């Protein structure tokens, strides 16, 4: 995307501005330069990382970001507290695993199944949404929690179809036509996966940003703010909520397909409440409910804490105590305790962040405006232009 050249023509500037409101002309303004640089850095990143280990981590983080973005539709925009989001992720993963593996000797292309499993996840989103429509808040959370527990259990017990506890192994990889000396096979190489999830993420951010600024996004927010008033204003709360569930779930369908194909296998254990549902919810809440940038930052932060900080911490403590060379401190073996109290440390970090930033790392624009009392038209345009 480059800066439009015909800016002097009357009318064009206005058009460019109206595009920007929708997040189209990302390069149109100076304040978008950081995003451009970030984009370039993200594209160049695998070239700079020689052994691809960091690329692998980034490629794994990608599907968490996608999950957090999807849940943000349900929780952040429509205000429906969903504790069973792992179910849709599982459904997306298994849909792909069953239709593209040796399990039934069905081998449909990844590129076809990507939208298909998103559609299947969306369908289940509607199925879950339908009975919960009358529920709100805590009650809705409990029902969705139940659904989130039921789905992995079904996958565990439906052995003939899903392979039971052992899951499905040997899932197909995506394939592209060979280009630039690359044979188009994904295999174990994380670099193509990295670019794949980057492309999926950019597409998802584009789609979700459009949704947020649309008639539908407005209806979701109206329901979140006041369901009775929304209904009295002519919004069909039933279909609008179902659409939130369906669209939220469809992005986890994308994530599931990607996850299954990258990992080669799916097992029911990887979709448990504490492994997925809670973590994604924490990403959304901690990042800043209703704000896409916040949610992305939250997802990256939580993922980093979980997969890097918590694993490295015992080693750091060990080397620190070794360096200090104090006899009684070395004997205490703090590193071992740190390893054992992994979840305790994770919890403490979460509590700490929530105490420092109760509104989330990057609160949604509405909260910011409330704090700054921005009133001019331009400030709103700017706020809305932001992802």
């Amino acid at each position: 995307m480059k800066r439009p050249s015909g800016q002097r023509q009357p009318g064009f500037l206005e058009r460019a501005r109206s595009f920007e409101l929708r997040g189209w002309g990302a390069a149109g303004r100076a304040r978008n330069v950081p995003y451009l640089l970030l984009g370039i850095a993200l594209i160049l990143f695998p070239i700079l990382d020689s052994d691809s280990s960091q690329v692998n981590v980034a490629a794994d983080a990608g599907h968490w970001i996608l999950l957090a973005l999807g849940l943000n539709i349900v929780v952040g925009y429509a205000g429906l507290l969903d504790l069973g989001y792992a179910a849709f992720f599982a459904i997306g993963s298994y849909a792909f695993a069953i239709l593209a593996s040796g399990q039934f000797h069905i081998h449909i292309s990844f590129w076809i199944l990507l939208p298909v499993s998103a559609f299947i996840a969306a369908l289940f989103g509607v199925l879950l949404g339908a009975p919960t429509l009358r529920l709100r808040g805590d009650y809705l959370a409990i029902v969705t929690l139940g659904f989130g527990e039921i789905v992995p259990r079904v996958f565990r017990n439906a052995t003939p179809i899903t392979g039971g506890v052992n899951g499905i192994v040997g899932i197909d990889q995506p394939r592209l036509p060979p280009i630039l000396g690359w044979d188009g096979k994904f295999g174990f190489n994380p670099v193509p996966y990295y670019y794949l999830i980057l492309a999926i993420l950019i597409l998802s951010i584009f789609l979700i940003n459009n949704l947020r600024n649309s008639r539908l996004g407005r209806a979701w927010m109206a329901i979140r703010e006041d369901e009775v008033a929304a209904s009295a204003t002519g919004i069909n709360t039933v279909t609008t909520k179902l659409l939130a569930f369906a669209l939220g779930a469809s992005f986890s369908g994308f994530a599931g397909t990607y996850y299954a194909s990258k990992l080669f296998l799916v097992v029911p254990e990887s979709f448990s409440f504490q492994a997925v549902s809670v973590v994604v919810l924490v990403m959304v809440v901690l990042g800043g409910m209703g704000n896409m940038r916040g949610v992305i930052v939250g997802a990256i932060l939580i993922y980093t804490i979980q997969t890097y900080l918590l694993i490295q911490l015992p080693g750091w403590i060990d080397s620190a105590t070794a360096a200090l060379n104090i006899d009684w401190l070395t004997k205490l073996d703090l590193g071992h305790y740190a390893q054992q109290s992994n979840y305790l440390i994770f919890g403490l970090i979460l509590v700490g962040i929530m105490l420092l930033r109760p509104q989330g790392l990057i609160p949604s624009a509405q909260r910011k405006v409330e704090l700054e009392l921005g009133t001019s038209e331009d400030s709103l345009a700017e706020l809305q232009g932001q992802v």
Partner: protein
Amino acid sequence: MPILEVKGLTKRFGGLLAVNNVDLSVEAGEIFAMIGPNGAGKTTLFNLVAGLYKPTSGQIFFNGRSVYPVREFWRTYSPPIAAYYTVADAVRRGVGLGPLPLGLKPHAVTTLGVARTFQNIRLFSYMTAVENVMVGEHPRMHAQVWDALLNTPFARNEERRVRDRAMELMRFVGLERYADQYARNLAYGFQRRLEIARALATEPKLLMLDEPAAGFNPQEKAELMQLIQAIRSRGITVFLIEHDMKVVMEVSERIVVLDYGEKIAEGPPQKVRTNPRVIEAYLGKSA
């Protein structure tokens, strides 16, 4: 022809008879007021008409049609449910039980042309004022999910049109300066006006205002009365609940009085004012 006709409307909450066999009709183009002491059932009657409650019995006709016509079932409910209602309705009529006492959902009533405001203001706090009004346009917008996802030219044009119309309404109620303020940051009086603008955005034929002057000072009340007259001159019928007698007597052409869920008087302001039953309801029986 009355724009809104209510026949034998009854609503029972457990042992409480909130609205008891009320008949009333609102003529097209008039300003019609409903008054009564606290707990008389005024807001309940509003909620019944707006579809928030289902009546225990009785019927509501809008523009001479029942608010529960068969065609509306098919438009607002899924086919199997609509089929069930249609058959159940026919059976009930056949055995002489009268039509199915079943309300349309509030959004369906709104699409029929009935808009309302709330006694305790119910705005979308964390949306801007103009967005609040744009929500009111929702039922008449046509952008589908794929339009929203892909931000198609159709969706963009519609958004622009809707925003312009919403701004027009903001000007009409005198809030254009506050269009981009969050609704919750507006002053109380402005919030009431914004609620009216949002209701007007649904393009109603009948606008129901639930105590629009509550908490207003005399200046604001005078402005409100002007606004109500302006709304009526747009061809919209106004049906309001109001406690302030000055507002009611000045602005309305006909008044209905409710007490303990029953209609005790109806007529032009001068007649209602001197009605002994009304005086009794408000001041108590003389010893």
